[in-house]
């Protein structure tokens, strides 16, 4: 009985982390047909936001409840960042999935390196450059002959701004030394500690259900419910669904499709931020945090079938349960009648081999249902 409970709970808790990581991806991928490789880095940003919020509230009476504030903050930060990414990169690439994939992958590398090397000196340098370059372009753009000198203007302005920014930030570095050159986060991971009330566990017999896992299960359920409600009961949800089904018809009927795209992307990114808060309670917070989850998240979306929430939910649960049952050798006792089966399961009952087994099962599954559990007709299919 305890064994069964343990398996169900173990599978559920792995599945809920997978689902949380995959939700935002599923929305962006499913509704917009955009593969966002920087999704993992949005999770990382969420995790770092948790770290910042935790430290900001350390000495205040709210220190035990920082996690709720972190959830809100992470959602907002990641959503804003997603909005910026959509406005500056993704919207130029709609309908070109391969280019989107490459571009967002580049963004993911930039974000990783940004977290490692960001310092006051860095921020000051980038700020100066942006101010000079974009400010200068704005001033120059008002000249009547701008179109003729455009290329030269941008090259000269870019070079000049870069030089000034470089000199300025170097002077800052020389004057204030470590105080401005020290990275905010650095390459070493940072420590996010769960609040006291999340650190223990709920004892059931001689087994203990960790509170962090329970918290993540509840959080995942809340997110799924929230998205369902948003997509089905709000005007913007209706518009998103309409655009998903038929973009040109929606546009003809007066739906602002560009706003809808931006909103969807921001929503997906915000969810990644929330997932980041959750994984910061379980594992590490470092510049490569997101990478640990991105492959699994893709797995869930692909197995579930693109664009259906229910697919992602079922797939996350199934993958979680299978990895838990294989990894912890929970089946071992049931097959002890056959020495072959027993040794077969024991062979796969290590963390590395369980992963191999799960991937193998997914490949086999996709042979039979290449479109996943719940295939959907939508924009991606029409295109």
């Amino acid at each position, binding site marked *: 009985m305890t064994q069964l409970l343990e398996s169900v709970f173990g599978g559920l808790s792995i599945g809920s982390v997978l689902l949380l990581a995959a939700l935002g991806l599923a929305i962006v991928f499913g509704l917009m047909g955009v593969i966002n490789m920087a999704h993992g880095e949005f999770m990382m940003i969420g995790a770092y936001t948790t770290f910042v919020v935790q430290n900001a509230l350390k000495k205040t009476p709210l220190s035990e409840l920082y996690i709720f504030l972190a959830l809100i903050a992470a959602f907002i930060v990641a959503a804003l960042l997603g909005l910026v990414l959509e406005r500056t990169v993704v919207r130029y690439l709609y309908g070109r999935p391969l280019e989107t994939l490459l571009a967002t992958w580049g963004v993911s590398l930039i974000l990783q390196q940004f977290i490692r090397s960001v310092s006051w000196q860095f921020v000051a340098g980038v700020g100066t450059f942006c101010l000079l370059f974009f400010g200068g372009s704005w001033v120059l753009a008002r000249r009547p002959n701008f179109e003729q000198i455009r290329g030269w203007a941008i090259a000269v302005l870019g070079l000049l701004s870069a030089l000034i920014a470089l000199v300025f930030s170097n002077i800052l570095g020389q004057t204030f030394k470590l105080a401005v050159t020290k990275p905010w986060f650095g390459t070493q991971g940072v420590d996010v500690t769960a609040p006291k009330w999340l650190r223990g566990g709920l004892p059931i017999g001689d087994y203990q259900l960790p509170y962090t896992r329970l918290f993540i299960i509840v959080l995942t359920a809340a997110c799924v419910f929230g998205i369902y409600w948003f997509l089905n009961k709000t005007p913007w949800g209706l518009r998103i669904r309409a655009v998903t089904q038929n973009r040109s018809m929606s546009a003809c009927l007066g739906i602002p499709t560009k706003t809808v795209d931006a909103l969807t992307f921001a929503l997906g990114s915000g969810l990644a931020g929330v997932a980041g808060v959750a994984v910061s309670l379980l594992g590490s917070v470092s510049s490569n945090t997101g990478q640990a989850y991105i492959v699994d998240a893709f797995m869930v979306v692909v197995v579930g079938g693109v664009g259906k929430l229910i697919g992602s939910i079922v797939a996350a649960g199934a993958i979680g349960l299978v990895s838990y049952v294989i990894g912890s050798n929970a089946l071992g006792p049931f097959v002890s009648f056959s020495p072959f089966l027993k040794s077969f399961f024991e062979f796969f*009952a290590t963390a590395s081999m369980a992963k191999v087994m799960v991937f193998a099962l997914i490949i086999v599954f996709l042979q039979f249902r290449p479109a996943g559990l719940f295939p959907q007709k939508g924009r991606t299919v029409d295109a």
Partner: protein
Amino acid sequence: MAQFGRREFIILSSTAAGSVLLKACAPSTTTGGTASPEASPAATTAAASGDVIKVGILHSLSGTMAISEKSVVDAEQLAIEEINEAGGVLGKKIEAIVEDGASDWPTFNEKAKKLIDQDKVATIFGCWTSASRKAVLPTFESKNHMLWYPVQYEGQECSKNIFYTGAAPNQQIEPSVDWLLKKYKGQPFFLVGSDYVFPRTANTIIKAQLAAKGGKVVGEDYIPLGGTEVTPIISKIKAAMPNGGIIYNSLNGDSNVAFFKQLQGAGMGPDKYPSMSVSIAEEEVRAIGVEYLKGHYAAWNYFQTVENPVNEKFVAAFKKKYGEDRVVNDPMEAAYIMVYLWKQAVEKAKTADDLEKVRVAALGQKIDAPEGPGVTMENNHHISKYVRIGEVRDDGLFEIVYATDKPVKPIPWNQFVKETKGYSCDWSDPAKGGKYKMT
């Protein structure tokens, strides 16, 4: 600053084009066809010509290992700066050429060749992972050059061209297992590690040792390097040791964070499930969080909390150069002293260029290290080291709960494992060499 370089593509691209041209013009170096190390004449370098001696520093400054190796570079540069301020070596200043191995083993090998052939350095300080060391080893042997390696490792190697200043298994793993056997009499062991060469070799040694001494291993599991889903492993530990037991942990990197966070969530604290780690030092404790590690053990040769004047000076100098909130750890200490050991060897040999003379002079060099006095470079190219076990305390540093009162001699070939039992290494005697059968 380098971080702004990315945007100044015009300047950069012109310099890059220039350097590519330069590289193309430089004579290509070939390594093929060199005879065995014994036959090839000892390499000599032009590193000491002029008034500087060039040395190479070869670590990962980018990629996953940068987290650990960056701080080792800091320690090596501190030692070089101190030596230069005190007048240098043989009256010459040391000039360090830092290369980035980028956590990529072929890159390590390329950069090692570049440092030896192009920069003509007198020696190289470098590497962290066993994989990077194994990748550069053939280069150092074929060119008969010299590498100083600062990290505890799994042993089972003894090269003429490498000086190992981290612990061999008998200076870290074996004593910690002995200590656990004594302190937690009769408790079962569960071995958890990352899935690569060091933990697997370490666990082979531990299993052989426990079998010889009457300990009991009830389980063993590996997580892919960087993996964070540890729920199945925690259930397995619980199932294998329902009444508590010892977790011997050789996980590396991010997996540790997930492991300790979830161990605590499952209610398996250090009172019933004490763990002994061989890859968690002061820096890692800060990244994982003290709350999750308090009361767990780690085995090293050096902790920041070691009390002696040399260490006080070392810690103070490091903090002065790199910031008050930085901490030092075992590999950093080993990296720091190996620069001094090399300096002593050069001074004894009265040359930095004749590598064979420097190598011979290095044997028997003694130093009062931050870890304790009388640390000696032995004839097997490993150094004698103090063995310590620390318990994580509230401030994230280690309370030393066990320490040897004198350095333990290194044994590179493991004496519990069948394949290497009875073998030894002695580079002071040409007849014996790197692997000979003791009688």
